């Protein structure tokens, strides 16, 4: 036998023993597969969501519903195909009881199918794509966050109420971006001067800002998560446009981007279902604990991650620690047996929350940190626009 063949066989033996080693992980405790975007320009969102989740778990002594809990965290890299492969790993290798997390809707749409097919519960910590709320809703899906359109709807309603006559809309050219435009326009009835769609990941907005300045609009509404938002906010104020028109956004000016934009974002208005200064005991405790643990104010993603862990904790408590009876666990989650940092919180028939939505404003806090702050409530106990299309009752 030649050297080449021997080496090839050696390699295969190594491969196989590596497989065997990883295949014999025991499955005793409650197992949660946590999917988040942890690399690339949008990583801060995933990091906040994960931090929130881990903070809650720590407060619960590392246990969910009193059961020892193992959390397997995977980075989806914001690539749907990579996410699918890794989620298959969670389902088949780690045999998780619940898949949780997920920042981006395209990742959620990609993994939903294999998760539902394996009849595993999928609880979102952020992404709330419309197909899963409407015709494509599933008994295995819950959202601990919102339905995607809702924060944009809140902004649309705000723009309508404040009497902005001419608004320019600007989002990245992808599904969530186009959805956000639809959400905004559902409640805004004034003139939309122009809709600008930019490539996903674009960081220099000079061309768009020049057009914006020439448009004569009295407000711009935008949805630019992560690094795109940082760049846009900085360039917006640098070009002096912040003195000419109101900057309205969702998922753009929040505690993940404020540390980078600082005073450039001051006074900007966003739609949100939560802010650090939302008045309730749970939230006060959460914000204080988060700032102590991570040295910076939490964002809405962190609050959702935190709520997600508390939701699972409450549900597993209800089932008496039994996570293998999926019907029982599902029923327990649907009752939302936990105290949300958002205050009133309950699930709709499609597994999405019924909750309040607010207008928040970026401000500099007394201690110098930049945070979002409650301005006014826009919607009370709001359902999403798609629940009627969902067959679940």
């Amino acid at each position, binding site marked *: 036998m030649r050297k*080449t063949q021997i*080496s090839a066989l050696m*390699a295969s033996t190594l491969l196989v023993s590596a497989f065997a080693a990883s295949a014999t992980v025991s499955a005793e405790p409650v197992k949660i597969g946590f999917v988040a975007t942890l690399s690339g320009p949008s990583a801060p969102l995933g990091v906040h969501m994960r931090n929130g989740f881990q903070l809650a778990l720590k407060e619960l002594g590392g246990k969910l519903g009193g059961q020892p809990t193992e959390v397997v965290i995977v980075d989806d890299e914001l690539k749907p195909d990579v996410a699918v*492969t890794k989620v298959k790993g969670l*389902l088949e290798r780690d045999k998780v009881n619940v898949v949780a997390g997920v920042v981006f809707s395209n990742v959620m749409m*990609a993994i939903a199918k294999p998760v539902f097919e394996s009849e595993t519960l999928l609880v979102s910590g952020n992404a709330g794509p419309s197909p899963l709320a409407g015709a494509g809703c599933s008994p295995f899906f819950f959202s601990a966050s919102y339905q995607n359109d809702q924060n944009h709807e809140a902004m649309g309603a705000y723009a309508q109420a404040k009497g902005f006559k001419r608004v320019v809309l600007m989002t990245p050219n*992808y599904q969530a971006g186009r959805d956000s435009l639809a959400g905004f326009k559902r409640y805004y009835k004034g003139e939309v001067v122009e809709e600008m769609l930019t490539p*996903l990941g674009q960081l220099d907005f000079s061309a768009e800002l020049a057009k914006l300045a020439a448009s004569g609009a009295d407000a711009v509404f935008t949805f630019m998560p992560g690094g795109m938002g940082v760049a846009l906010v900085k360039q917006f104020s640098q070009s002096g446009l912040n003195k000419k028109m109101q900057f309205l956004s969702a998922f753009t000016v929040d505690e993940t981007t404020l540390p980078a934009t600082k005073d450039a974002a001051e006074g900007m208005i966003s739609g949100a279902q939560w802010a650090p200064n939302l008045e309730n005991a749970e939230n006060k405790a959460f914000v204080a604990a988060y700032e102590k643990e991570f040295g910076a104010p939490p964002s809405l993603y962190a609050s959702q991650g935190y709520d997600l862990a508390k939701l699972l904790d409450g549900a597993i408590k209800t089932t008496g620690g039994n996570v293998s009876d999926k019907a029982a666990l599902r029923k327990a989650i649907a009752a939302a047996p936990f105290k949300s940092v958002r205050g009133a919180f309950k699930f709709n028939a499609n597994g999405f929350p019924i909750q309040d939505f607010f207008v928040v404003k970026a401000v500099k806090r007394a201690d110098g940190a930049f945070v979002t702050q409650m301005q006014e409530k826009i919607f009370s106990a709001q359902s999403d626009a798609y629940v009627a299309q969902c067959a679940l009752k």
Partner: protein
Amino acid sequence: MNDMNRAAVVNPALKQDLLTGFAVIGALFAALATAQIAGAPYLTSLIGRIAITSIAALSLSFLIGQAGLVSFGHAAPIGIGAYVALMLAAGGTTDLSIQLSAAFILAALIALITGPIALKTRGVTFIMLTLAFAQMFFYVASSLVSWGGDDGMALAQRSTLFGYQILRTDAMLAAFSIALLAVILLANTWMAHTRFGLVLKAMTENERRVAANGFEVNHFLLYAFVIAAGVAAVSGVLLANQANYVSPAYLNWHRSGELIVIVVLGGVGRLPGAVLASALVILFEEFLGHYTEYWKLGLGLTIVAIVLLRGRDLGAFFGVRNQGARP
């Protein structure tokens, strides 16, 4: 003429190349069988991914190693293959014989259009032109709003073969992919020794000589470019089935770059090396990525160390010889 000086009818170099190919394929099947017996379905899908990536890497390795053409746009035919699978499946055409041939033909036709333009140049300019064409297809895919636009779309249903659900489980998909990989690897190994392979390989070293021998250099390079694109599209069809998902990210230049890295890591001109490197990179990501989100740091250090310290590649490390007709 005395018989001693005749070339042997059984070509020893070809025999050895084929044996190496069989050994690598055998190793993959052995790993798949072990994973099945050990009851580790996840590892099955991992092996499937390795086989699919290997097909893509193999087509690029053929292009770089045997034709001397470094394409920085090889993600494009892969993505085209994936979109063909997505669109045909949505229309109810799930048969692999149709999907694979349609993907092969479409990618080959596109290569037939872009190839002559890129082949007016060589070296870095060729690299950049292939990148330019791939970027154009990336943006086209991103603008297909009814096919998911930038987000991509889930595959309506997995492919079938003559009515059979041949890709129903991950194990079947992996086995089918390895079988296809075997066919492509062995055909490619064989081809390296045929007249076509002999001419192509000579071109990578000395285009002037080959032209003076009566061969139209650019025609041969174009054939190679077209074949490589077609084979890459085949891996795209499998990739779509494996992930059950198709997105423009498949056509991103990062993917083209990663594929070049896999080929060079495996050793240019060493076909089984491309399979080894695909396995290494995927396993690296799986196992190191399981422990730290900074696994790319580890991969980067490993790559730099391999390049700097040994100055050789994985294929050489495992004793895989350079393929081709050299005695």
